[in-house]
């Protein structure tokens, strides 16, 4: 383990407004995404999907499909190793074995010379099904007489969490105010503009995949398991990835099916999901939850205890939903200081698309409930909700009831910043009718220890003979900008100009193991690993420079690529370039290469769910002003403010982009995104009905970063990617209540729901 704690200092590269390193390729259209890749002899793969939500497969006949000219392979489960796979619970086949469990599930697949032949063959595969009862609501699947979706999962329960610290009922009895309510959240798709896709080829026992995954090594691990291969016999090369947001972390079958077809045919095979397939069975959408929450308070606003009950929808197979359910059940208790907490969470199988990782990872659903209950408490107490946040806010040194250890924390500062940005007191005091102002807060991790007892990162740096450094990293880039941030960290540590550092594209054959992009971990974890590699590299450079300058290495300094005796930049000097050249081109020479590692000081949660899950915690407070149209129920977000504590901002343009993008996804989650369902089948799986926010929907937006420094982070940095997504829905829910006195209990908040809630409120008040 490498842990260093560094004091704050001024930086040369970190925190400067550099341009992204992938700019030229992305603005000129020259960058290659997976759909842009064509290999000689490449076949087109297509997948036959289940039309039914739950059914036994009686018979599959592929004989007619195999006769279509141009078809090179038609496969079913019989052509796969029939190994069940999954991130936490191995329950998903590559192609359906004996049963289908949701509409869209992969049943068979075809590889053909062109798409027309592939489509024709798909239409000729004959499948006979015997329908079974299907469940689209977890509470139906929990019924005692419910048919089992997986025979080995009694009660259709995938996971149960039941934790009590202290005695909540006793504390509630002694509290001045106790409030409770129940809130439901819905499926939200990551919906990157690029769908999931793969190009696979197989020769000599080696499978090579071009795959738009955000977690290359984890994808390799799961492919190796499901295909019964060694990890090293699979190479994953990451093209540019057109957005991930959690949805491209390999919980779906696209690459699995593509690989089986490539192995079967010996030809390269390409499968790119259509937009409809992406909704049916592509990225695993956000886990819907029904959360009941009760909170107790003292008169002065101090939180006394919290009790929540979560029913989470797993869908038909298990991806990351177990971990997500754990986050929803427990994470929020790191935000405010209280010790008495009870949480029960059940993750339940249904016959809908498997749910999974989406920016926020359980936090947005939990915050949607808990931060609204907190707001209820604030109203009940007659205390400004910002003061409730400040009163209870976690602080440096706080240890949550579940063992999360907070090091840096600027939650109160975030509350102060939001108060100022929104002109909070003044606007609240002078708001017109049907305008509302409200807040919400959140905590997020910087990496989470849950895939075995390792949440580390690694990196290798070489310095070429021209003095330019290359970082080899397998973390990957799915658009959020870690490539640029990691190069800034390396340049800062090495003492070279930003232009003298670049990073390799991610490729499992060429880099050491990296978990990849999830849990807001790259800046903090990969950043520390890169920094460690750069420190080791710098030591090598200084030792050679010391010989050249006849000085002790510890007396030397590197700035802007120049090496000189500390405090004497005008004296004898050399450069990184001269050192790299001199190190290589001599008898017994060698290139400059150094490795780095970092594994944070977190621990794997024990069976009672106790344990510090992350090396650092990120905090945010957000506020909104909304207007509700009393005649139509339409909600307009007039202004939004976000204050984020992510430690040192390494790459300002990227950090701002993460917050701004989170706000847009929060807006969609809260107000516009959702599908209509008919017997387990989404009836409108397309971008014209699944309404992503457009440029015209975005509110006036104010954002600030807290003045913050995480001592265990690279140059003081911690995670940010998901943070700003977490509280958005709750903030809007609270603001609607402030505007018109109605609570909306189910996402998305459509105008229709607000309209009917207003009518009901009118009836209620006229009845009195």
């Amino acid at each position: 383990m490498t842990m260093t704690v560094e004091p704050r200092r001024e930086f040369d590269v970190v925190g400067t407004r550099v341009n992204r390193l992938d700019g030229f390729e992305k603005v000129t259209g020259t960058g290659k995404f997976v759909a842009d890749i064509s290999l000689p002899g490449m076949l087109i793969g297509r997948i036959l999907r289940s039309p039914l939500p739950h059914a036994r497969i009686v018979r599959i006949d592929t004989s007619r499909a195999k006769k279509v000219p141009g078809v090179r392979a038609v496969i079913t489960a019989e052509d796969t190793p029939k190994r069940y796979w999954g991130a936490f619970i191995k329950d998903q086949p590559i192609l359906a074995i004996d049963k289908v469990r949701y509409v869209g599930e992969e049943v068979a697949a075809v590889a053909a010379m062109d798409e027309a032949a592939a489509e024709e063959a798909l239409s000729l595969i004959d499948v006979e099904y015997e329908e079974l009862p299907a469940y689209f609501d977890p509470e139906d699947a929990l019924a005692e007489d419910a048919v089992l979706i997986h025979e080995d999962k009694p009660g259709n329960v995938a996971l149960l969490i039941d934790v009590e610290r202290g005695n909540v009922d006793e504390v509630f009895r002694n509290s001045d105010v106790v409030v409770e309510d129940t809130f439901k959240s819905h499926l939200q798709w990551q919906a990157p503009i690029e769908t999931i896709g793969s190009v696979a080829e197989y020769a000599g026992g080696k499978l090579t995949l071009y795959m738009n995954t955000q977690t290359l090594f984890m994808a390799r691990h799961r492919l190796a398991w499901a295909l019964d291969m060694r990890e090293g016999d699979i190479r994953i090369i990451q093209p540019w990835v057109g957005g991930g947001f959690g949805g491209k972390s390999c919980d779906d079958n696209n690459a699995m099916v593509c690989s089986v077809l490539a192995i079967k045919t010996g030809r390269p095979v390409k499968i790119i999901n259509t937009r409809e397939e992406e909704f049916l069975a592509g990225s695993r959408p956000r886990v819907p939850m029904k959360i009941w929450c009760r909170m107790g308070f003292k008169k002065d606003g101090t939180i006394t205890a919290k009790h929540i009950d979560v029913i989470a929808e797993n869908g038909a197979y298990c991806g990351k939903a177990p971990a997500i359910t754990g986050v929803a059940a427990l994470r929020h208790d790191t935000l405010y200081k209280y010790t008495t907490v009870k949480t029960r969470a059940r993750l339940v199988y249904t016959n809908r698309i498997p749910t999974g990782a989406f920016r926020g990872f359980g936090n947005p659903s939990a915050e949607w409930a808990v931060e609204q209950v907190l707001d209820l408490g604030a109203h009940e107490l007659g205390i400004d909700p910002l003061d409730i946040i400040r009163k209870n806010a976690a602080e440096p040194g706080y240890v949550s009831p579940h063992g999360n250890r907070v090091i840096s924390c600027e939650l109160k500062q975030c509350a102060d910043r939001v108060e100022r940005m929104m002109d909070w007191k003044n606007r609240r005091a002078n708001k017109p009718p049907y305008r509302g102002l409200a807040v919400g807060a959140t905590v997020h991790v910087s990496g989470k220890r849950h895939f075995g007892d390792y949440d580390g990162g690694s990196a290798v740096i070489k310095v070429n003979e021209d003095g330019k450094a290359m970082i080899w990293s397998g973390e990957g880039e799915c658009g959020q900008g870690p490539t640029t941030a990691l190069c800034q960290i390396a340049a800062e540590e090495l003492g070279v100009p930003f232009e003298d550092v670049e990073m390799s594209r991610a490729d499992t054959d060429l880099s050491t193991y990296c978990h990849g992009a999830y849990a807001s971990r790259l800046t903090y974890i990969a950043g520390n690993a890169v920094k460690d590699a750069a420190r080791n590299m710098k030591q090598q450079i200084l030792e050679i420079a010391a010989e050249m300058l006849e000085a002790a290495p510890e007396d030397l300094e590197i700035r802007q690529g120049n090496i000189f005796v500390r405090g004497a930049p005008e004296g004898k000097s050399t450069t990184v370039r001269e050192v790299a050249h001199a190190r290589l081109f001599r008898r017994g020479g060698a290139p400059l290469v150094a490795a780095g590692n970092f594994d944070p000081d977190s621990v794997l949660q024990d069976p009672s769910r106790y344990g510090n899950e992350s090396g650092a915690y990120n905090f945010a407070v957000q506020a909104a002003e909304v207007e509700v149209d009393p005649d139509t129920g339409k909600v307009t977000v007039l202004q939004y403010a976000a204050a984020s504590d992510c430690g040192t901002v390494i790459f300002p343009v990227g950090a701002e982009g993460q917050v701004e993008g989170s706000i847009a996804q929060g807006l969609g989650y809260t107000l516009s995104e959702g599908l209509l369902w008919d017997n387990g089948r989404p009836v409108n799986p397309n971008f014209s009905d699944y309404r992503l926010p457009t440029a015209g929907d975005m509110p006036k937006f104010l954002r600030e970063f807290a003045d913050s420094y995480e001592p265990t982070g690279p140059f003081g940095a911690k995670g940010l990617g998901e943070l700003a997504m977490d509280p958005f829905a709750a903030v809007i829910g609270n603001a609607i209540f402030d505007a018109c006195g109605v609570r909306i209990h189910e996402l998305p908040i459509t105008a229709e729901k607000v309209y009917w809630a207003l009518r009901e409120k009118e009836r209620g008040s006229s009845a009195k």
Partner: protein
Amino acid sequence: MKRTVEFTVNGDAYRFEIEPNRRLIDVLRDDIGLTGTKEGCSIGVCGACTVQVDGDMISSCLMLAVNANGRDVTTIEGLAEGDRLHPLQRAFIEYGGFQCGICTPGQIMAAKALLDHNPKPTRDEVVEWMTGNLCRCTGYYKIIESIMAVVDGKVEGQEVRA
């Protein structure tokens, strides 16, 4: 039955024998190899496949290639001259108008179609025009800022590295 179609793409003349149901995006990407034009939704909603045809903004997933006969098509690959970027391209880099980059060619082509017709739009006009191009990464703020930087003359086309 195949038809003979002739049109230019980024000033280069092409002649194809193509099926009449073939989409312009497929000819651009698969036959010519200009993969900068992206497909996001296939129904003309997301704008990732935006190109210009005789200067007009077109969703190339909705246009049949035969309808391009005799016309001039401009794609994202037609904007830069070597390493010398179009001001919009430069602005998207300097102002962070992209993240993953999948929608970026469409965003830039849509913005170009606007500025070709109206070089001095207001911010509201830019926002209104750009609502036809979805982006899941940026929240649009930096896209609009990038375009406004060009409108306000803050950006010149120039060579860049990286």
